[in-house]
């Protein structure tokens, strides 16, 4: 969950459905805190995972999800942003500077979208600026598992794996909904409710709405990350 997700906020607030919220929803686009990201959901990272492969104990799975709130049935019509460089950054020596990167860069749009994968490779630049590193490890196509050098990659729409009672979170901390409803909160860290909803009333907003994301899934031998 990224609090700046304008689209997500809009839908959540619409579901909350209080008169105050409805009154302000139309002002949303004027008040996004990061208009560039609101206009480019392909840059919006929603969740990151790292776990041992259920299929092969020698492998590790890395996942990044982007592009929140793709509606049910709409997965086939949304593809990755071909202008964006997607990166996993890995620090292996404890200085919190990336020593290896795995990069994915897409070409074209739609279900025939292709992508190039680079890495794991020591990046020629570190920090907030990057270049797409060469040589490219291989080229794949959306929704088709691609294998290169023992590394397996999948890119495509998947069910949003996150679960959270987002509506109640916004009730507790309305400041976090400011990007969409335009309501500035002068005391942003003062909770407006002191409780979550009870087990029978709490709602996983993302499952309830059948929402999807775009996933980049990389399965890689442990040795390629450890050394």
């Amino acid at each position, binding site marked *: 969950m990224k609090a700046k997700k304008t689209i997500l906020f809009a839908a959540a607030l619409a579901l909350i459905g209080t008169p105050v919220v409805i009154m302000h929803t139309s002002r949303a686009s004027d008040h996004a805190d990061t208009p560039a990201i609101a206009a480019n959901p392909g840059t919006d990272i929603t969740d990151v995972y790292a*776990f041992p492969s259920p299929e092969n104990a020698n492998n590790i799975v890395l996942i990044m999800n982007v592009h929140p709130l793709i509606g049910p049935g709409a997965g086939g019509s949304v593809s990755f942003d071909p202008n964006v460089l997607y990166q996993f950054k890995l620090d292996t020596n404890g200085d919190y500077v990336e020593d290896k990167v795995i990069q994915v860069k897409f070409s074209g749009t739609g279900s025939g979208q292709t992508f190039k994968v680079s890495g794991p490779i020591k990046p020629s630049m570190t920090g907030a600026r990057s270049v797409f590193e060469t040589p490219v490890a291989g080229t794949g196509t959306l929704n088709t598992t691609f294998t290169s050098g023992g590394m397996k990659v999948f890119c495509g729409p998947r069910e949003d794996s996150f679960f959270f009672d987002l509506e109640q979170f916004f009730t507790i901390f309305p400041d976090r909904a400011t990007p969409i409803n335009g309501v500035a909160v002068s005391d942003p860290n003062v909770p407006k409710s002191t409780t979550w909803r009870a087990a029978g009333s709490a709602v996983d907003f993302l499952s309830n709405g059948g929402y999807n994301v775009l996933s980049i899934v990389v399965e890689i031998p442990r040795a390629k990350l450890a050394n």
Partner: protein
Amino acid sequence: MKTEIKLLGAAIFAATVAGGCAGFNNGPAGPKVISLWTTTSTPDGAQFTQADRLARPAVNEVFATVAGNHHEINDLAIPTDDHLNLTADIEGFLTSPCGRSPETRAVIKAVLVPDVLKFDVNSKDAAAYLGVETGGATGGKFGGRKLEDDVIDISLGIIFGNTISALGLAPDDGAEIPTLLSDHVDASGKHFSATFPYIGRPN
């Protein structure tokens, strides 16, 4: 004096567990902690400039206010900058509304800053969010984050609950807020798979 030593010890323990051993390796099978974060970047001439960054879930989202643009500052920062803005965001939130003690605040900051997802690449133990930082107390020493992890409830336990004192990292500060310890949502609505790519098919 005793309290200070205890505080220092807790902070050092947390920091060591969290990151100090990252380059330490007992051999091929010894612990090897790797820190992961992800970015998206947009074109800037022949290069790309960071537009978003994410590692641990519900850190920037919970601690950083929209007011004052704190979200965006952290989105555009790099991990070595997190001791500045993100640390201040966490300190402020834990002080108010949470009312946590200085000892508890110090441990939580040591665990969550910088914002990276840590995993022991050599561990055959289970993945569990904050498993590296807590010595496996959240469910497995591999750490990282698996699809099923209830990261919100784990985070709520640290922020509003007594997770830190229960681990012996700081004295119980009595600041627990029992009504905020779980959002009462689980993964039952998801369709995770045991086979690649593991996340459910799109709805």
